[in-house]
């Protein structure tokens, strides 16, 4: 028994990328595992960073800007009545929620996707081609906006060949394949249940950064649908420290509202 969950490992890893004095974004999300990857885990990551090295970092959760993130302030459900009454510094007008990132004021944006490719293009709109559609997914939401403008993007997905593909079927968020004229920095971090990946600066291609404790590099290669850049030495993802686990379990998320999606209608755990 390793003594920590996958969601805790990823939250601690993601928190290292949260910079002081930046605004970070998560959506409202729906429920279940997808919610933990796109909303719950990132929210804990930002709160951890606020406790650790980034007291001035803020989080925007849909229209809720800079809420108090420790458990005692977090509502039990994410219905809009509860979201509206969540203690926060600003309920942000939609005009601003969709405007501030265009001024470069969005630091790290957290996402999830049905497909992510080697360039860091994301797809949440459609599986299959326009002419031969296999699955119509709900649509781009604000992912395209953040793909164009966010300073940095962290995407969290399941590590398998169906998700990590050579090229996405629909680009709902532009990666490093072509960023000419796009002001944002694009994706910087890919978190999965097996590994942490980033992008090689010279080529913009996805590169293995670390493997989670107990995962072999071969296992990562085998479950990636494209040729991942593998550095000569691949470290292990740092496990959470005792202090970090204590902070998560006693202060930030003791009721598992975030890391088990208990604030939504559909509780889950990231481990399958």
């Amino acid at each position, binding site marked *: 028994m390793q003594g920590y969950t996958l969601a805790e490992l990823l939250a601690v890893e993601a928190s290292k990328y949260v910079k002081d004095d930046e605004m970070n974004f998560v959506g*409202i999300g*729906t*429920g279940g595992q997808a919610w933990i990857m796109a909303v719950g885990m990132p929210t804990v990551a930002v709160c951890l960073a606020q406790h650790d090295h980034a007291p001035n970092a803020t989080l925007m959760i*849909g*229209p809720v800007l800079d809420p108090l993130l420790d458990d005692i302030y977090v509502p039990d459900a994410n*219905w*809009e*009545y509860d*979201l*509206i*009454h969540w203690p926060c510094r600003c*309920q*942000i*007008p*939609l*005009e601003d*929620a*969709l405007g501030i990132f*265009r001024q470069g004021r969005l630091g790290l944006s957290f996402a999830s996707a049905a497909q992510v490719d080697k360039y860091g293009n994301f797809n949440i*709109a*459609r599986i299959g081609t*326009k002419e031969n*559609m*296999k*699955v*119509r*997914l*709900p*649509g*781009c*939401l*604000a*992912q*395209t*906006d953040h*793909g*164009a*403008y966010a300073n940095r993007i962290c995407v969290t997905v399941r590590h398998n060949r169906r998700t990590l593909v050579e090229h996405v079927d*629909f*680009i*709902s*968020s*532009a990666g490093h*394949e*072509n*960023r*000419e*004229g*796009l*002001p944002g920095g694009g994706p910087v971090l890919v978190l999965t249940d097996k590994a942490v990946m980033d992008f090689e600066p010279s080529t913009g291609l996805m590169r293995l950064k670390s493997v989670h404790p107990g995962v072999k590099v071969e296992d990562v290669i085998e479950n990636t649908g494209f040729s991942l850049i593998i550095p000569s030495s691949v470290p292990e993802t740092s496990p959470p420290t005792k202090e970090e686990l204590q902070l998560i379990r006693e202060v930030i998320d003791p009721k598992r509202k975030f890391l088990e999606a208990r604030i*939504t*209608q*559909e509780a889950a755990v990231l481990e399958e």
Partner: protein
Amino acid sequence: MIQRTSKVKKLKDAISMIADGDKVAIGGSLIRRAPMALVREIARQRKRELTLYSWSAGMDYDLLIGAGCVKEAWSSYCGLFQFGMAMNFRRKVESEEVRFVDLSESCAKDKFRAAAFGQTFCVSKVPLHTSMMENPEFQSIIECPFTGEKYVAMEAYHPDVAIIHAHRADQYGNVQWKPIRMMDNECDILIAKSAKKVIVSVEKIVDESVIINNPTWTMLPKMYINAVVELPYGAHPNSCDTLYDFDLEHGRLYREYSQTPEKFKKYLEKYVYGCPEYEDYLNLCGGIETLSKISRDTLEVE
């Protein structure tokens, strides 16, 4: 003094302003505050060949698509949020019976805002290098005359009719929302301003004096409004800001009914075609008394 003209209409008469083939813009976001009673009446009157515009759609699009009213739809999203995929939308877009045009949230809002500000187009960098550009409507790239930066030109939305749901209005069409509301629903204001005609349903029609005493609540003064329909729980089963939550029970029922076209036909027969009057629908859902269990707040000032 001569009386001003009342814009209060019966549900049937208001929706009869919509013609087959119209471009209809719908308010709300995801499964929040879409004008579902107006939407069901469009389906009940069996309007055809509609083009739908929204900022972020949900059950509103899915119901109209499932009822065969739609030929084309534009939005940043069409799903049932916690209830998963919008199955009618998914089926008919996959089979190409309905053309769906993908937009990001900011682009959808930009297109409404352009029309609301009297402009014919707007520009955005967002579609660059994405599949939004696979549609012919997003293939015109223009340069900023001052900086040379590249933008995709997007035509303003010009809906024939907009339908929205608000908290209250007077009989003349001065429309108010309580200040404590879901900010994500604010695109409604631009959606209304972009359209040639606006039909608004409200929880309550109030005396003009209530409006006059609270003028900062008025988000759409009467110049924008063509018809006001009083429909308590008019967003049901959608939520309405803090006034009432999404009706989980009806959400589960809708998800079940929308799994196949045959089942969905039964939903339409029961909850749409089988309800010639709005009261019939409310009674079918247990009546106002039962619905009050999803209420969270009142329209009174705190």
